[in-house]
C-alpha cells in the first residue's frame, strides 16, 4: 500500500461510476446510492491482516464526508482503528483475489472481508455503497508483493 495508491482510490471513487459501470445497472440502483451517500460520514479502514513487508502500512484509511472521500492515506491498523467508524479486514490472499476481480458480493458473503470494528446494522444501511467502493478499488492497478 502506498500514498499514491490511496490517492488513486480517492480520485477513482469520487468520480465513480463511469459511464460503462453506470449503464450496467438500473437507474434505480444509482438513485439508491445517491440517497445513501449524504449519510456516509466518518472513517473507514480497509485492512490487510498479513500484509508482506514493503509497504507504507497495512490499512487504507478513507475519511468520508457526505459520501465523498475527503482524505485518503495509508496507516498501520493500530493507528487507523482508533478513529474508524468501520474497519473491514481480510487476509492478504483474500485481498489479492478481490483486486483480481473476485465478486465483491461474494467477498462479503463468504467473509473474505470481515467487519472487525463498527456497528453491523449501521454498516449495512449503506451496503451497496460499500460494495461499489470495493468495485472501484478493483479497477486500480496494483503490484503484488512477495509473501513474507
Amino acid at each position: 500500500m502506498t500514498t499514491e495508491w490511496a490517492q488513486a482510490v480517492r480520485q477513482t471513487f469520487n468520480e465513480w461510476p463511469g459511464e460503462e459501470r453506470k449503464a450496467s445497472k438500473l437507474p434505480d440502483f444509482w438513485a439508491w446510492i445517491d440517497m445513501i451517500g449524504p449519510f456516509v460520514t466518518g472513517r473507514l479502514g480497509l485492512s490487510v491482516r498479513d500484509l508482506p513487508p514493503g509497504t507504507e502500512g497495512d490499512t487504507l484509511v478513507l475519511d468520508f464526508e457526505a459520501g465523498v472521500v475527503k482524505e485518503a492515506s495509508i496507516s498501520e491498523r493500530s493507528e487507523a482503528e482508533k478513529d474508524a467508524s468501520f474497519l473491514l479486514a481480510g487476509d492478504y490472499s483474500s485481498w489479492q483475489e478481490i483486486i483480481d476481480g473476485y465478486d465483491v458480493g461474494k467477498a462479503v458473503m463468504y467473509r473474505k472481508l470481515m467487519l472487525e470494528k463498527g456497528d453491523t446494522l449501521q454498516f449495512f444501511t449503506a451496503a451497496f455503497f460499500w460494495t461499489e467502493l470495493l468495485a472501484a478499488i478493483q479497477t486500480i492497478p496494483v503490484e503484488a508483493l512477495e509473501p513474507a
Partner: protein
Amino acid sequence: MTAIETSFAHVEGVDLSGLGHTDIDDVLDYVHEPTAHLPGYLELYDRYLRQRWNVNDLDFSTDRLDWTERMTDESRNSFLSIASGFHHGERQVEAELAPLFFGIPEDYKVFLTSHLEDEARHTVFFDHFYRDVVGIDGDGIMDILDASWPYIQETFVGPFGLLAYLTDDLRRDPYNKHLQMKYATTYMIWIEGVLALSVMKITLNYARDFKVLPAYYTGFTATCRDEARHVQGGMRFVRDLLAEDPNYVTDLHDTLRVLLTMGAARSALIYYEPLGWSEERVQELFLDQLRKKLAMVGVSLPADMEEMLTMVKPTLAGG
C-alpha cells in the same frame, strides 16, 4: 372437521410423493395456521421426524425433458433468476446457523439440529436440480454455486451479507439477546419468512400451472413444509424474547429498518411475466408475508417503517 382443517391435516401427514400432488398454496397457508398457538420446539422436532424426506428419492428425468423441450428461453431465464437466489440462500442459511445454538433454550437446541439438517438437504436438493435439470457440471457443492451465481441479483448481498456479519457478531457474543433478536429478525422473519416463502410461491405456482418440473415441484413443496417448521420455531423464539423483555422490539425494528432500506435498491430487472407474475403482485406478496410474520409475533410497525414498505423492491432469494 372443516375444509381448512382437512387441508392442514393433509399437508401435515402426506409423504413425499403425495406432496407432489399437493397444492403449494395449501402448504403456504399451513405456515401461518397456528398463529394463536405456535407449536413448542419439541412438537416441531416431532413433526420433523415424521415429515423428513430423502432428496435422493427424487427423479429429475422428466424435469430435464421439460427444461430442454417444453420451457422457453424466457421462462428458463426468469426461472433461473429466481431459483438461483434460493440455491445460494439455502447454502447461506445452512452455513450461518451454528452460532445460534449456544445461547437459546434447550428445547430449541434440539429442534435446531433438525433445522440445520433440513438446510443442508435443501442445499443438496438445489445442487441436484442444477446438475440434473439445468445441466451444470462441477466437482462439489461450491462449483455448482459458482456457476449459478451470475443469475442472482447483486442486491442479494444485502440481506445475506447482513446475516453473515450478524452471525459473526453472535459467534463472538452468543448470549447477547439483542444480537439474537437482530439475527432472528434477519434470518427467521425476513429471509425465511418473507423472501423464501415468496419465491416458493412464484416458482411453484409456475410449475403447478404450466404442469412442468414435477420433481422440482415435489422437492420444493417438501422444502416449503420444512420451512413452515423453521418459521414457526423462529416466530416462537422471537415471541418468547419479546415476552421476556418488550424492549427487544427496538432491535427488531432497527434490523427491519435496515433490511427495508436495502430492499429499496435493485440493480437489474427480473421478468416475471414468463412465469405468470408481475412485479406489482410480487411486491404485494412480500408485504403480505411480512405482515403475517409480524402478526405471529404481535409486533406492529411505526409510521416511518410503514412508509418504507411502499419502496421495497423484490429481492428474489430465500433459504
